[in-house]
């Protein structure tokens, strides 16, 4: 073994070219970071400067310092935490319900090809239908609170079912055949082959659903609500407080980022 080792161990003394390459990579990464920050700063500066210079009407666009003041005001009123909390809770619940219900239905469809064939056209239509069109109906049927959950779940549910079922049905047939030669029945094929083989499908669905639940909740809140970021946006626009609207939108984007990071963490942990 020792004799076959190359005379120059590459790991111990990296060549000059390799060190240069590493440096270049690090420089490139820094450039990317700087570029991102610059774009953000330029956007904020333009947003601040244009209304102040009288180029656009500040009533329409507001501007960052005003948004910040609006944010502080909401914070002082003590209602901001409530609005964020309400929206987050609605997102988490409808996301979880859509995910669990969708997984159960997808599993049933996989277990019963006949059921899948029968339901296929209905699922396709249900998925294609703009769920937002249902908001008024949900409102009449379920009231303000219920309709928010109903829209958010409806937006995420059908795509969950379709994505998961597609993943399940594309499981490598040879892996299934192998499990059958080892004596596996349908249930065991599900738990030993189909589900573990579709962790990536599950993650993709999860990612899509976080965004979709958020969309559904905000749309639901637009229609009717007493609290939540969607409510804040509608209310702010009605009393023409653009700073309030913008503050809510900024918070929404921060929530999206936080959720995205959370999902990424979960992915790293699930995939190991």
């Amino acid at each position, binding site marked *: 073994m020792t004799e076959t080792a190359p005379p120059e161990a590459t790991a111990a003394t990296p060549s000059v070219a390799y060190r240069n390459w590493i440096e270049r990579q690090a420089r490139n990464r820094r450039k990317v970071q700087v570029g991102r920050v610059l774009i953000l700063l330029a956007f904020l500066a333009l947003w601040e400067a244009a209304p102040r210079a009288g180029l656009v009407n500040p009533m329409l666009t507001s501007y960052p310092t005003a948004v910040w003041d609006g944010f502080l005001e909401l914070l002082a009123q003590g209602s901001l935490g409530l609005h964020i909390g309400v929206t987050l809770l609605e997102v988490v619940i409808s996301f979880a319900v859509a995910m669990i219900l969708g997984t159960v239905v997808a599993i049933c469809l996989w277990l019963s090809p006949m059921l899948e064939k029968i339901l296929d056209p209905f699922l396709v239509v249900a998925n294609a239908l703009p769920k937002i069109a249902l908001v008024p109906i949900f409102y009449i049927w379920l009231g303000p609170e219920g309709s928010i959950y109903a829209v958010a779940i409806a937006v995420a549910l059908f795509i969950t079912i379709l994505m998961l079922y597609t993943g399940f049905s594309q499981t*490598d047939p*040879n*892996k299934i*055949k192998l*499990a059958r*030669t*080892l*004596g596996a029945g349908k249930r*065991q094929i599900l738990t*030993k082959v189909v589900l573990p083989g579709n962790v990536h499908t599950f993650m993709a669905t999860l990612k899509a659903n976080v965004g979709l639940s958020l969309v559904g909740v905000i749309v639901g809140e637009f229609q009717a609500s007493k609290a939540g970021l969607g409510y804040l946006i509608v209310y702010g626009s009605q009393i023409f407080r653009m700073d309030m609207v913008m503050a809510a939108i900024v918070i929404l984007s921060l929530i999206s980022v936080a959720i995205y990071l959370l999902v990424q963490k979960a992915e790293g942990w699930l995939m190991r």
Partner: protein
Amino acid sequence: MTTHDTSGRHKEVPPKVEFRKVNLHYFSDEGETHAVKDMSFSVGRGEFVSIVGQSGCGKSTLLSLLSGLMKPTSGQVLIDGKPVAGPSPQVGFMLQQDTLFEWRTILENALLGPEIRGMDMGAARQRAERILTSYGLGQFLHHKPPQLSGGMRQRAALGRTMCMEPDILLLDEPFSALDFQTRLSIAEEIGEIIRREGKTAILVTHDIPEAIALADRVVVLSPRPGRLKSIHEIGFPSAGPARPGSMAAREAEEFRDYYHTIWTEMETHD
């Protein structure tokens, strides 16, 4: 080979594996495929039989029938004289494609069968570790399949099959994904393991030299619908009384004749 007589089953031990006038039709929306036609042959205990034939002549179908994944349209498939009713731990099947589960380690892959069959997992684990180690995978028990070379994956797949302690092994082109060099040595190695453990083995392959080098008999099938064309007894008296390993067999003087005969048969259509 003596014909099997149901009334005389006390006098005769039935062959390990027997196909009796087996037909198999596949049905699909595109139509009907007659994949296997009037197939009759048997394989003795501890025998190594190779099946060769052109692509689509029903080789994989024969193995699926034997492993109980499907039933013949007509005729009978028998193991130890009893009709095959379904997948049994007695039959180990190495599929044509690499089917190690990439989300399981090599050891966990080998434990799939015992898990499915609800066997004693402590004993199965010891067995799997021993088998995989004896196949040179001791260092890689906790690696995932993508981290292994093609040859190692093939040995791991054999380990998974052997972990069920089958007495019949079905090998469906197990070496076809390997490069030529690896293919020769893995075939030698796996042939050696199977003979050492006294398993009955059926190997399906496109590769005539491989079929001859490993087997006691070579079964030639005609193109679709797959029918039995001929059976060749393989022996290498020039290499000594014992059956030589597959590498040595390729060097033996009888090899060329077998190759020539079987090659000509596969080329001629009737």
